[in-house]
């Protein structure tokens, strides 16, 4: 029997349709096979696709959100993938690009603000945590970033202040040290008088 899972947020609604995978003994209200999904945005075209498109959406949006929590804005997805997301070129938002599998259909680009992106992330979280969805989703586990990935979020000027300040302080100390007069070499101690003069004939 066909099942419909529906999740709502203020700006969007996700609807996933599927069937229980009876070959592995799933019950009637479970979804083990996704047959289609639609994502409705307020005042925007409706998106729809197959299971692999939904998975691709989750595989780029959730890691992008994870990076944003660390203050790192890093585009996710490549030109040959069905879904890409990255910062909006004009600044102050994000751009979700969806490439259609239909020939001669131009890619759809959706500008999202921070609130709409959060809504989308919450929808995808609701879906992946729904106990009725009983299928493996190949999603990466969030991990702490590496030091060089975090460094990108610190402005270069701020990053260089400490090492440049240290180098400057060292150079100043060395310069001042060179200006100090070299202390004269210590006087040799006066020669001790001979204990006994040799007797002269």
């Amino acid at each position: 029997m066909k099942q419909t899972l529906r999740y709502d947020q203020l700006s969007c609604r996700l609807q996933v349709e599927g069937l229980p995978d009876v070959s592995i003994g799933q019950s009637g209200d479970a979804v083990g096979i996704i047959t289609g999904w639609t994502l409705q945005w307020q005042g925007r075209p409706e998106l729809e696709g197959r299971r692999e498109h939904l998975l691709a959406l989750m595989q780029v949006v959730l890691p992008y959100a994870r990076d944003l929590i660390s203050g790192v804005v890093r585009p996710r997805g490549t030109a040959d993938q069905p879904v890409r997301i990255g910062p909006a070129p004009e600044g102050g938002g994000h751009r979700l690009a969806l490439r259609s599998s239909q020939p001669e259909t131009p890619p759809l680009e959706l500008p999202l603000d921070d609130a709409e992106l959060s809504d989308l992330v919450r929808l995808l979280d609701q879906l992946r945590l729904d106990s009725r969805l009983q299928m493996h989703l190949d999603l990466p586990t969030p991990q702490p970033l590496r030091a060089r990935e975090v460094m990108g979020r610190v402005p270069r000027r701020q990053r260089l202040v400490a090492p440049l300040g240290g180098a400057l302080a060292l150079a100043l100390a060395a310069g001042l040290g060179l200006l100090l007069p070299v202390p004269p070499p210590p006087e040799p101690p006066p020669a001790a008088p001979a204990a006994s003069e040799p007797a002269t004939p």
Partner: protein
Amino acid sequence: MPDPTAASAPTRLPRRGLERLDLLLLCVEALDLNGGEAMVWMSEQMGFTGLFPNRVELWKRRCHNPLRRTTRRGGLDPAETDALIRILCALADRLYPMLRALLASAEPEAIRQQRWALFQERLDELVQERMNARREGVQRLLDPERGAAQRRQLIQALALGAGTGGFERLRASLGDPAV
């Protein structure tokens, strides 16, 4: 089938992570006037009474933030940090409509500015009351211009980490190395 809610092995948070965790909890208090009470209530509701038997114990864990006026040395047990993050995610979920309203660009500019000003005012009060004002990080957060990006980043982190689904994202982010 793997359980999607299952968390990966807990690890000890670095000092920078403890600092951000406490600042995020402070933002919750700035958004909700009863945030402190809500934190204790949520801890009880989520079954963390064994870890934080009372508000003093909860407060003592938060004092591991190095920016605090009275800071505590040492790190926190991974079970304690996980519990604090779970409480934070649950509180952020309750406050999500407010977080969303702060982040939405569709709202009129005047209303957005008013909301941010109110949030900044409350956060500044809490920061001045509890944090060491001689620390550069505190001065930056209190600065109306320099701190604006950091305040927005904290609100965005709360919005993206809200709810059960946000727990692993937020925990991974708090485990970032300091640079």
